[in-house]
């Protein structure tokens, strides 16, 4: 094993920008699970998520030489994943609801084993899974992706007013359902 695994994101991104595929592989391993988890929540499909993350990383490889702030590589990668994932969502027919693959609260652990913090996250997972797909996507892009209303509108091909409306409804639901989980 080389010492590359202990290098900072910034160093690895610099090497990858110079053409070092080994450094890029370390970045992909390091951030892949997070990017994939985000894409699964966003698309509701692990197959779509895998494709979106792979496409995103290929685009990232091309764009790395122009990346200004290499220390922010993870959030930059997340924004590319968002774009690729929303492309996939847009390409679907509106009737395709793919919620069944969403990772849900019910893993093997029994409720007794779970700490309160876990239950709280499980509760949120349930609430998000229950939201209409469009609301959930807007919510995740804003709260996890850190996108502005305008950026979300652009990503999803919607007007800002629609995004605002979806987020308003998602917010009411999330707050109401999470009330008991303070």
């Amino acid at each position: 094993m080389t010492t590359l695994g202990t290098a900072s994101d910034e160093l690895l991104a610099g090497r990858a920008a110079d053409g070092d595929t080994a450094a890029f592989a370390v970045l992909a391993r390091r951030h892949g699970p997070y990017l994939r988890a985000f894409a699964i929540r966003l698309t509701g499909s692990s197959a779509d998520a895998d494709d979106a993350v792979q496409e995103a990383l290929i685009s990232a490889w091309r764009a790395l030489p122009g990346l200004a702030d290499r220390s922010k590589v993870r959030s930059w990668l997340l924004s590319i994943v968002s774009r690729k994932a929303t492309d996939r969502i847009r390409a679907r027919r509106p009737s395709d609801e793919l919620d069944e693959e969403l990772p849900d609260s019910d893993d093997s652990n029994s409720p007794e084993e779970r700490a309160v913090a876990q239950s709280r996250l499980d509760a949120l997972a349930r609430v998000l899974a229950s939201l209409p797909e469009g609301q959930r996507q807007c919510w995740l892009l804003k709260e996890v992706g850190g996108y502005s209303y305008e950026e979300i509108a652009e990503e999803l091909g919607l007007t800002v007013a629609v995004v605002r409306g979806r987020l308003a409804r998602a917010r009411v639901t999330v707050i109401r359902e999470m009330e008991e989980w303070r």
Partner: protein
Amino acid sequence: MTERSADIGGSGYTLDELSDYLDRGMSPAIPAIDDNAECQAMLATLSRVAGLSRELVSRDAAENPTIDEGWLAGLLSAVGREVRAGRDIPFSSSDPTTRLTITEGAVRELVRAAGDSVDGVLVGTVAIDGDVTQPGAEVAVAVTISIVPRRSARELAEAVRERVRSELLKHTELAVGAIDVTVADVHLLPSDEPAPGAVTGDGTTTGPAPRDEEEQR
């Protein structure tokens, strides 16, 4: 479904307006919100659910930390097809009908490997400045490095400079002028890492076999 949410705690501000306020970093300050207990509670709730949303994705990732090797291999083979060759650097040839070149990308790799071969050093970026396409034109090389703690930055930088210079002289015909080495970062050795095996080697380029960083000078 566009009913206006009621204003919160008689502040005159709705839930959505509170959310916008939070997004703006609560600045400029709005006293009607800042001095209202119900608004404050709602702001706390809003930032709590936002934080939980991020935590949820982090937890998903922690529960599925393994990268599918087939998926990664597919990615790397796609990436490997897009080589960053850069400029062509000419080589003199005894045969006037042949034109020999080495790519800038290959020279960068050479510099990277030279720097990495110094114990306790990882090379970051490599810049080659000057008209490399012109035989004999002087070029400057700028390298950023990361070093392990507790080693002298000055000595390591000097070792990198020497190693890079000698490798370039050995393998290229570049007229190497200044070699700038900047220590930009610090990293630990794999043995210092609490969780080994989190990241593995990947067989492509570079990487000296990590030697013990004992006192071998």
